[in-house]
């Protein structure tokens, strides 16, 4: 009972926080205190769930349709995601306080409220016990992030918001819903079951189609050609981008992909039928193409966005390799990429707050004025690339191992090539920051580090990247337990 | 007797047809009203005859109604023409006040 209560509270707490935040509209300090304390409390709750993982608890919230309950449960992958999301919420909040105040943004209360709501939805996604629940929270997440994306209210923001909403809603309703109904029609339930539920329930010939409906339907995983929303959403303020790229949205997407692969299809089924084959290539192409596009972007955030598209495809690719090692790699990549990418976004935001610059070509030599920021950026880039001393190494390592185990040498090559491309488009930024001289040297003196809160946040995440390198063991074990239980 | 009733009925119908032609041709509105009025009277007779023709003469009530309705209808139409207004108050009825 207690565990079930915790489960429910985990999802409800951010909502409660949202209400409280809304009530503190006129008192910014109080409002932010509430946000922070909610976030901390939430993180503790999730940790407690993590601790009590011994027995799997399940909680049914409601039964919208016969045989289709809205229910939550704990499961390693979900807990990992929940931990990442709730942990990063704290840091993002700290960062947002600096960013929002530094930029004197409008409608800050609305921002915090919807942020909290979307965190709630994210936790719902993470803890959902069946595909239907996941879908519900997935849609709530889409809708609650929409006001965040269009936060600025400008024409450009609205356009971005329209693309964001359009792509995410249309893919999810157009494909994902269809795939879900199909699955339900074939199986009779949508519970996440180790080993999958589709075995023998559906014509093998239809499996690739169904899988494609799922993968493209989960628009948040940003598999090309449905990645357009991600760059479009770059109009949002930086904390929102962090939310989208690291904490919640895209992670919810790839998380859903992993869940579907492992618990709906089941690795064995996919392996036996080869349904994954061509989608694997779709993911591989996305990896390379997105990296190439990222190379051409001068706008820092746009480059980061395409980098995300590419990195997400890694995880999808990991899922499509359909072996446990690759899946573990994919799961770990959720965490490591989250930390790495959030660091980079924080840095981009910090630079924007400090200098109001958005293009990489204008950032030459900034490293000298903003050493902490740039150091963090270096660490973040290394983590994304997957070089030692950062957590990114391990996830890429396992992904590569997975490719090797699946004997997909071409995929292994794709991993290698894309890592090189990562070096080319990411590492160049700190390098330019540190080693090139700024074009107009007179400015240099006026530029300072961003507000303290922001710098604190980005340092924390950068440290986290490094920490993951040394403490990757628990992460691995957690992911591995996903398959142990299956046996 | 049935044959006599039938012949009478058919004669009346003939009359009705002719009246109908006048009604359709006009030309003035008063001609139409006249035709309608004549038609109405013929209908009354027709119903009376039909009652006998079909052996149920107690249906003459309908004929009675027709006479009344026909009269009211004609009055309404005439008033419509004189005043373009069916509810107009006449000066006569106001006088006692």
């Amino acid at each position, binding site marked *: 009972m207690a565990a079930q209560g915790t489960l429910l509270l985990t999802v409800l707490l951010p909502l409660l926080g949202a209400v409280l935040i809304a009530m503190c509209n006129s008192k910014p300090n109080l409002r932010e205190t509430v946000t922070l304390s909610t976030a901390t409390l939430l993180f503790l709750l999730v940790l407690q769930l993590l601790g009590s993982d011994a027995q799997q608890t399940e909680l049914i919230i409601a039964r919208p349709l016969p045989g289709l309950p809205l229910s939550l449960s704990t499961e390693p992958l979900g807990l990992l995601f929940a931990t990442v999301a709730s942990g990063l919420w704290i840091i993002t909040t700290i960062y947002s306080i600096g960013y929002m105040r530094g930029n004197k943004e409008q409608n800050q209360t609305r921002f915090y409220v919807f942020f909290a709501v979307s965190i709630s939805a994210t936790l719902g996604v993470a803890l959902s016990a069946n595909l239907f629940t996941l879908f519900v929270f997935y849609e709530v997440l889409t809708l609650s992030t929409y006001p965040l994306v269009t936060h600025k209210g400008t024409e450009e923001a609205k356009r971005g918001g329209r693309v964001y909403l359009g792509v995410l809603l249309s893919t999810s309703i157009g494909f994902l819903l269809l795939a879900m109904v199909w699955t339900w029609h074939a199986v009779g339930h949508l519970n996440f079951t180790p080993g999958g539920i589709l075995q023998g329930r559906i014509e093998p010939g239809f499996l690739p189609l169904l899988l494609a409906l799922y993968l493209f339907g989960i628009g948040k995983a940003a598999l090309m050609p449905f990645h357009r929303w991600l760059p479009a959403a770059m109009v949002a303020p930086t904390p929102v981008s962090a939310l989208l790229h690291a904490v919640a949205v895209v992670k919810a997407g790839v998380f859903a992909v992993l869940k579907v692969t492992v618990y709906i299809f089941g690795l064995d089924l996919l392996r036996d039928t080869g349904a994954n084959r061509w989608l694997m290539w779709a993911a591989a192409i996305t990896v390379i193409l997105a990296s190439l596009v990222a190379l051409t972007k001068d706008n820092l955030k746009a480059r980061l966005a395409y980098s995300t598209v590419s990195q997400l495809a890694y995880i999808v690719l990991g899922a499509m390799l359909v072996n446990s090692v690759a899946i573990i790699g994919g799961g770990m990549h959720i965490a490591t990429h989250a930390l790495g990418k959030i660091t980079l976004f924080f840095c981009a935001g910090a630079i924007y707050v400090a200098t109001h610059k958005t293009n990489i070509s204008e950032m030459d030599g900034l490293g000298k004025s903003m050493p902490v920021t740039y150091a963090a950026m270096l660490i973040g880039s290394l983590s994304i690339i997957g070089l030692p001393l950062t957590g990114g190494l391990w996830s890429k390592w396992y992904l590569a191992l997975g490719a090797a185990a699946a004997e997909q040498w071409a995929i292994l090559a794709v991993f290698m090539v894309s890592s090189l491309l990562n070096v080319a488009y990411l590492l160049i930024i700190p390098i330019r920051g540190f080693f090139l001289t700024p074009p107009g040297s007179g400015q240099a003196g006026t530029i300072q580090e961003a507000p303290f809160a922001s710098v604190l946040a980005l340092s924390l995440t950068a440290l986290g990247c490094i920490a993951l390198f040394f403490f990757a063991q628990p992460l691995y074990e957690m992911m591995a337990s996903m398959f142990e239980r299956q046996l | 007797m049935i044959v006599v009733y039938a012949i009478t009925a058919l004669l009346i119908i003939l009359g009705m047809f002719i009246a109908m032609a006048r009604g359709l*041709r*006009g*030309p*003035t*509105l008063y001609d139409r009203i006249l035709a309608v009025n004549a038609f109405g009277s013929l209908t009354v007779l027709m119903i009376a005859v039909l009652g006998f023709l079909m052996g149920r003469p*107690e*249906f003459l*009530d*309908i004929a*009675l*109604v027709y006479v*009344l*309705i026909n*009269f*009211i209808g004609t*009055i*309404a139409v005439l*008033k419509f*023409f*004189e*005043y*373009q*207004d*069916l*509810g*107009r*108050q*006449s*000066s*006569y*009825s*106001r006088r006692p006040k």
Partner: protein
Amino acid sequence: MEHHIVLRVVAKLLIPIILLFALYVQFHGDYGPGGGFQAGVIFGAGFILYALIFGLQTTKQVISPSFVHGMSGAGVLLYAGVGVISLFRGGNYLDYSVLLSDPVHGQHLGIMLIELGVGITVAFVMVSLFYAFAGYRQIELRKQGSTKQNDVAQASDADPNGKRQ
């Protein structure tokens, strides 16, 4: 119609006959053609004739609009009420057999009552229809200030058939 003395006299003669006839139709409906609805229309027609000849204002003094509206509702209430009474007397809705101890007489009574309800509603709705239509014209006219009487009739003759003459 001030110059139609003949009409006036005839109407005075006819209207009572019409109303009497309406009552006859109302209560003779069980035995011959007729019934509440027909009686109601005839009853209403009697008042309409009165209004046509003596004017709307006078008629409204004889039988006031609010009374008319009330009565048109009362007929429906009477009808539906008979049904409710049969409910209270243990029958189904509108089951007249339970109205009296003898089912056949009960039926008879029930039919008479509901026919009366129909008659009342129909008669007064007819009158209120006429009030509404004719009264609307009155207000329109008052708004325009003056009535143009005769030219209207002439103008209305300009019908294409008329031109052919």
